């Protein structure tokens, strides 16, 4: 029986016509040059093909075993956050002309994507206070790896200073990227405030330091307010100042460009990209308009130019940094990035606008502060652990073992924060909670009631 599938257009007649043109009897003759010894002479051991209706049902049944924040309130953050994705973001970013397009190497026929990405780059520059942004990296963690390597190339130095308070997966990724090429040192934090210890930074920095890296807000949700001082320390020692951001904070916190950042990285996912169990995400990457920095920058850059008629248009530019031109001398190996996610971010920023970005920050901060305050009132819980301004995430310490709290919350239909006691043992029984604009007052009250019950039942 002839296998017929909707994705393959060739009919038996089509195949016969092509075989005749080639003067051969079967397609098998086109595989004659593969040594018999290694030919796979059996069908691959894969499930039998499913027609679309059955396929959909099969996957739906499997995914029914998942629970989302629509079924139970989830208070997780830590690198991926739950925010609302406006309908207009999906309907425009997923237009087939964007979704099924290739990388815009043929500029003349790809002005749509090129301009959309130019606008994305522009908006990232505006919110971060930088001049140049690339068309995306894979995520914040890999952007950190690339930023370290870039700082190494630009300064010809081999060390990066990072905060002790950092997402463990970002640290792990950095390690992989700089392995045998650069080294890193961790700067301790002030145990009262949870902010970077400036004295320790001053002592640690040297002529070997390529970059000082700071996250703002940091992994614990704490707002670093001495960033101008950190910038000075970095620059006085000839190091670059790299800042990592959660861009949902940039409506209410000063953009890193205003306090001296040379490179800004971050995670664009909370601006219009669904969490999708951790990917695709989108790494932000921006720098100052400095020839030495731009020359060393990884990733694709879209620039403005003209066509033969003098019409304003766009094209991929400064390609001599990239792998397809420079090969082993490229600033990075990155080829495919997260372009469609960049369009989602651009549509999101354009639709919420300046007031929206401020509103987003305000609502998240207010909701988080409310929950933080009320948790602190529950016996057996301290929130936050640090005496500082927090953005949308905060630490919670509990007298009851945190694994038990987690289980008891799940039993009551609530997903608590991320358990961080193994990442930061010095904090004891600690978790990292996140509250955003998607949490309704009912969601928040449900968490608080559950914690109150847990507190009571534990005596």
């Amino acid at each position, binding site marked *: 029986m002839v296998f017929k599938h909707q994705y393959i257009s060739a009919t038996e007649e089509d195949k016969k016509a092509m075989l005749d043109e080639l003067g051969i009897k079967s397609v098998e003759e086109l595989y004659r040059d593969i040594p018999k010894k*290694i030919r796979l002479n059996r069908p*691959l051991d894969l499930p039998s093909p499913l027609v679309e209706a059955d396929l959909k049902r099969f996957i739906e049944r499997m995914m029914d075993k998942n629970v989302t924040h629509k079924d139970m309130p989830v208070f997780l953050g830590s690198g991926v956050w739950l925010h609302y994705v406006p309908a207009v973001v999906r309907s425009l970013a997923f237009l087939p002309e964007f979704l*099924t397009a290739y990388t815009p190497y043929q500029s003349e026929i790809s002005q*749509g994507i090129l301009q*959309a990405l130019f606008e994305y780059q522009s908006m990232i520059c505006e919110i971060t206070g930088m001049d140049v942004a690339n068309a995306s990296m894979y995520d914040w963690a890999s952007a950190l790896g690339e930023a370290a390597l870039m700082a190494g190339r630009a300064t010809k130095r081999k060390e990066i200073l990072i905060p002790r308070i950092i*997402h463990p997966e970002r640290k792990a990724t950095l390690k992989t990227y700089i392995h045998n090429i650069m080294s890193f040192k961790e700067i301790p934090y002030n145990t009262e405030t949870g902010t970077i210890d400036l004295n320790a930074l001053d002592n640690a920095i040297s002529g070997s330091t390529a970059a000082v890296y700071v996250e703002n807000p940091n992994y614990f949700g704490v707002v670093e307010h001495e960033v101008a001082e950190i910038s000075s320390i970095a620059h006085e020692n000839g190091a670059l100042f790299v800042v990592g951001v959660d861009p949902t904070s940039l409506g209410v916190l000063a953009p890193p460009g205003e306090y001296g950042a040379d490179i800004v990285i971050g995670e664009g996912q909370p601006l219009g990209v669904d969490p999708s169990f951790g990917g695709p995400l989108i790494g932000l990457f921006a720098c100052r308009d400095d020839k030495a920095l731009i020359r060393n920058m990884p990733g694709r850059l879209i620039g403005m130019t003209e066509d033969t008629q003098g019409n304003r248009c766009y094209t991929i530019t400064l390609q001599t940094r990239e792998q397809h031109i420079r090969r082993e001398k490229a600033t990075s*190996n990155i080829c495919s990035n997260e372009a469609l996610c960049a369009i989602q971010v651009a549509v999101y920023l354009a639709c919420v606008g300046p007031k929206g970005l401020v509103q987003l920050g305000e609502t998240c901060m207010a909701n988080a502060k409310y929950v933080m305050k009320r948790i602190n009132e529950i016996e057996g819980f301290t929130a936050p652990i640090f005496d500082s301004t927090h953005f949308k995430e905060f630490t919670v310490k509990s007298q009851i073992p945190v694994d038990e709290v987690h289980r008891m919350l799940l039993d009551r239909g609530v997903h608590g924060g991320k358990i961080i006691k193994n990442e930061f043992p010095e904090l004891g029984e600690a978790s990292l909670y996140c509250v955003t604009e998607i949490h309704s007052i009912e969601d928040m009250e449900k968490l608080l009631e559950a914690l109150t019950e847990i507190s009571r039942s534990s005596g």
Partner: protein
Amino acid sequence: MAEGFKQAIWKERDKVLEPLIFEISVPGRVGHVLPKACDKVVSEVGDVLKSIPEKIRRKTPVNLPEVSEIQLTRHYLHLAQMNYAVDLGFYPLGSCTMKYNPKINEEIARMDKISRLHPYQDASTVQGALELLYRFEKMLAEISGMARVTLQPSAGAHGELTGLCIIRKYHEDRGEIQNRREIIVPDSAHGTNPASANMAGFSVVTIPSSTDGCVDLEALRTVVGKQTAGLMLTNPNTLGIFEEEILEISDIIHSVGGLLYYDGANLNGVLNKVRPGDMGFDIVHFNLHKTFSTPHGGGGPGAGPVGVKEKLVPYLPIPIVEYDEKKGAYYLDYNRPKSIGKMKGFYGNFGVIVKAYSYILSLGAEGLNEVAEVAVLNANYLAKKIREIPGFSLPYAEDKPRKHECVISAAKLKAETGVTAFDVAKRILDFGIHAPVVYFPQIVEEALMIEPTETETKENLDAFVSVMKKISSEAYGEKEKVLSAPHSTSVSRVDEVRAARKPILSWKMYQKYKS
């Protein structure tokens, strides 16, 4: 596809097509209103903005566009109409495998139970997601003949870097990394191969291809030794030719203690025919956005899973999805002391992976076999018909069959008419067809790398051949039309020199430039 093709042109005013979003912004408009904190919260917490320390509080207004939802919709739709895509027409880009992107996959990826999952949720709440990852891993392992597969890398190049980090760790583990400094690549390799090797801290040794376009075994023998960490190869190679001597190549590398890396970009033509694991490869990366139909999105997101042979399994990035028989549940295993660590946060591009999984479920082994056969038949058909056109040739082993792609040379056309592969590419756009890849691989002069894929209709293949015939006759006759192409796209030839000489990379830089 005919000369009647004309791409949309949205032109607002002289010299300006679709305005930039900043230019259509009007103060006071908004495209989406976000929720405010409710009264109960506000009464409890007061003015949160005032609570931010003054020196870190944002004071300068955010410069984002202010547009209404209708403006936003029209703006992006105008841009979309000035963009080419697989859904519009033929995209014979070699090495990119621009096959049709199934719509059911999009529907599935957008399900709440997939798109709204947080990666740090308790394993008990994400069993469906973990099960999908586990099953998909097994499928890729079977397709490639490898033991286990990591789904973490976000793209092919990311997969290459992952594979090279594994090679690095393997040699470190044996105390040999001080010596094993070199990665060998053929001169026909994709640019990401040497770029990835460099990122992983290796130096790159490039070997010339032989006159038949394949790896020159003698050249290979002279460069291997105790300093060899590994060889990166794609098979079929970038000419679309199967490296018949792959078992010999494998022996040469393994006999000096090196590892063999497979760039999976060219997997489409050999699915169910031969597996990299059986060819002797130790590490493989896949491009889900090529072979497995996930959409390119104008440059991503893709995914680049990496498969390894048993001896390299301990080095895979963490975490790996495992199944606990006793508990009857899937879990994430981080307890892997020899792992290279992480290549990025979380587990991989799950939203892309589900599309590839759905694709394989739709086709099965029978379907993937058909995919390979039709892809190969289409490519060979085009190779034969195009090389017969004046000015074009099929360099390197003309009589050898190709697999999923072929590389045509326009060197004769250039020599006899002055029309280059670049010009040909631009003229192809005038017919509503995307140009093939040009000037790659570097070992072919005036290269046009053509990969039709199995999803294309024969009518379109024939139409493409007609277009190439037309362009050839134009080149030998009234060549001006080719030299000044394209004419039917929304803009004419773009000045790339100007773009690089005076870079304007953002609205901010544009404002400076204007003043």
